[in-house]
């Protein structure tokens, strides 16, 4: 199956750093053009095509405007799909050391909840999250896809931890 390239659809070069203004301008232009409301006179097939084209456009926009989704998408285009568990083309398995770190972080969270400083803990995780995201983006600039993907998987672990802090559960 040919993967429609979000970058091509939005007339942007396929790279991790994008021109946000160009993205917004192109999106608005195409959104106006593709929207089903613009083809009210079309027959059923025309309407359906408009819904499909708008859907693709909205998905492309949603992916590219967000730096993390954009980075994950570049990995996918580079042959590593973080949504997949395939050993070769799926999300890289995290190393033993990282998993031990995560266990340690969870223990710290439990302590922080139990009368410790939850805000300090949140701050620490947020800093780590920013750091791995920055590393992932730097790796993508050097076209080191696998290394970037590893950082992005680590980011997902940290994000989940942060969600748990916010949810208070």
């Amino acid at each position, binding site marked *: 199956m040919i993967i429609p390239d979000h970058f091509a659809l939005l007339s942007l070069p396929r790279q991790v750093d994008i021109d946000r203004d160009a993205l*917004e301008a192109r999106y*608005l232009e195409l*959104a*106006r053009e593709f*929207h*089903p*409301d*613009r083809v*009210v*006179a*079309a*027959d*059923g*097939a025309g*309407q*359906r095509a408009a*819904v*499909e084209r*708008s*859907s*693709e456009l*909205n*998905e492309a*926009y*949603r992916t590219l405007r967000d730096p993390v989704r954009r980075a994950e998408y570049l990995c996918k285009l580079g042959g590593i799909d973080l949504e997949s568990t395939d050993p070769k083309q799926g999300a890289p398995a995290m190393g033993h050391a990282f998993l031990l770190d995560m266990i340690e972080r969870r223990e710290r969270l439990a302590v922080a909840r139990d009368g410790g400083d939850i805000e300090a803990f949140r701050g620490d995780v947020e800093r780590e999250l920013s750091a791995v995201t920055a590393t992932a983006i730097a790796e993508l600039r050097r076209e080191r896809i696998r290394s970037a993907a590893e950082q992005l998987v680590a980011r997902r672990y940290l994000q989940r931890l942060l969600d748990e802090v916010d949810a208070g559960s």
Partner: protein
Amino acid sequence: MADSLDTSALFQIEEPEAPRARRRAAGRAIGIDLGTTHSLVAVAPSGAAPRVLADAGGNVLVPSVVSYVGADTRVGVAARAEQVDHPQQVISSVKRFMGRSAQDIGFSHPYRIVSADGVIRFDVGGRRLTPIEVSAEILAVLRTRAEVELGGAVDGAVITVPAYFDDAQRQATKDAGRIAGLDVYRLLAEPTAAALAYGLDRGDTGLFAVYDLGGGTFDISVLRLREGVFQVLATGGDSALGGDDFDRALAAWLIERAGVTAPDHGQTAEALHVARAAKETLSSEDVVAVDLPRAGLAGFELTRAQLEAIVTPIARRTISPCRQALKDAGIAPEELDGVVLVGGSTRTPLVRRLVEQVFRREPLVDLDPDQVVAFGAAIQADILSGSPREGVTLLDVVPLSLGLETMGGIVEKIIARNSTIPIAARQVFTNYSEQQTAMTIHVVQGERELAADCKSLARFELRGIPRLPPSMARVEVVFQLDADALLTVTARELMTGAKQTVEVKPTYGLSAAEVDALVTESYDRAEEDFAARSSAEARVELGRVALAVRAALDDAGDDVSVLPAEEREQVVGALADADATLAAPSASGKATDAVRLRLETVSEPFARRRMERSLLSGMQGKRVEEVERAIDDEGDLDARRGGHGPELTGVGHDEG
């Protein structure tokens, strides 16, 4: 549910049913605000400014109340008047029941509800009606009002829904529209409609929040406007929170004050009416006298401070969704260019203060908060009817995430909330063993982690998966959300490419077949209603003309110079026909119109002669301007009469 989702023939190639391609009639579309407490209809034909339509008495708001007392159904003010005496047969706030199961209804209500196959019905004494059918009665009244105004059939409608309505609630609303005989062009989010109406489209760019607190629902939307595109960035709310809750809280408090511990339905209904009126008065006054004759409370002085103490906890429930929407949109309150208030409940001073606190600015209130949503719906309806109207493009979002139940009852999100619609997402499933030839797909909507805590939209089984080694069979399931945020699921077996489309009818709605049956039934009834109305209008008109002719006959006496004998005979004959027609209530609109036209035709020379004569006699000894005024008055009368005839004739043609 099961009948429409029988997927035993899953992997036969099947084209999804093509949407009906129908030419729309530009300029004949209406916008409907189907509210919890009241509803209204507006038009903005062919680029015109929107205007709301009133009934003969000048009332714009139709109370969203339907009475099933007796054989006939009544909607609006007449229905509301019967509520205190028949609390179980007069349905109000039906919007709260739309797309919901018996378990979802956690609020108190006086109705007898029967629930079967997940569908709830009101037992109104003999008849059992779904919330969809009750809503359709309200929509039909609004459609009729618009037909009288537009002088013929309505082509289609945009119906507004709370932004926070889920798939089931939206589907129920769309089905109600169909049953009311409307081609629903689009379901439009209420805050988005309000933003459109507010003329926010006139500015070049800006960030706006729309705070919409209606009778039964609360929405908050954050929108960005750029280059003719209205982009909803985030939306949030509570589809079971509104001004009705203020009324209920106040009513309960008043009943307690009256010393009644177990109020009956009549006492509760009375307290609710009184509470609503008192709340409205206290928006502008500081104190109001309250009487509850049934509960034995007389001359109680309720202050605004007391009201605010009672409703503050409810009003404060709107704060957290506002903060979440700002967060989801990624903006700080200071970045907003304006905050728009929508919904009658935003008239409450307490609510205004709260909005000011949260958004740190004074809200915009220059449009009537009751009408602004209908205005926006009418504008969008006009655009979608194909009118050459300079329109903005609306990019709305899905308010709640859509997901699938996976192992252990955990939800896997497929489409995230606040994704711009239309949007599609796909998920590939594999078999876990060669023996597996079927899999269950359970679609849920909501933000919670466990499927049991989310709204169940549909559950269906994919069968006919080829026997292949584990992980080799691959079924791709595509979720497609259209511009109404309604979901369609398509499943495709990737080895063969065969596919099947499943229209996701919510578990708590009606099946497609049931809706079709109701549409057919209501279509028949609509024709009856239409005929009855056009007949009634024709009778009124005929009566008016007959009265005028009879008066002229009396006035003319035996004067053959103004009415020759043979002409008199004709006029008298036509008048007798008119009397006979008026005495027969079954006469159709068309037949009645024909009698009136004949009477007008035969009496026309007579009328002209009378007018000439009165002018001539009047001129002797009268001043010129008085004569001119007399001519003008006659002219007005002619214009009124002339203006009315063709309209009725037009209605008759369309009906036939």
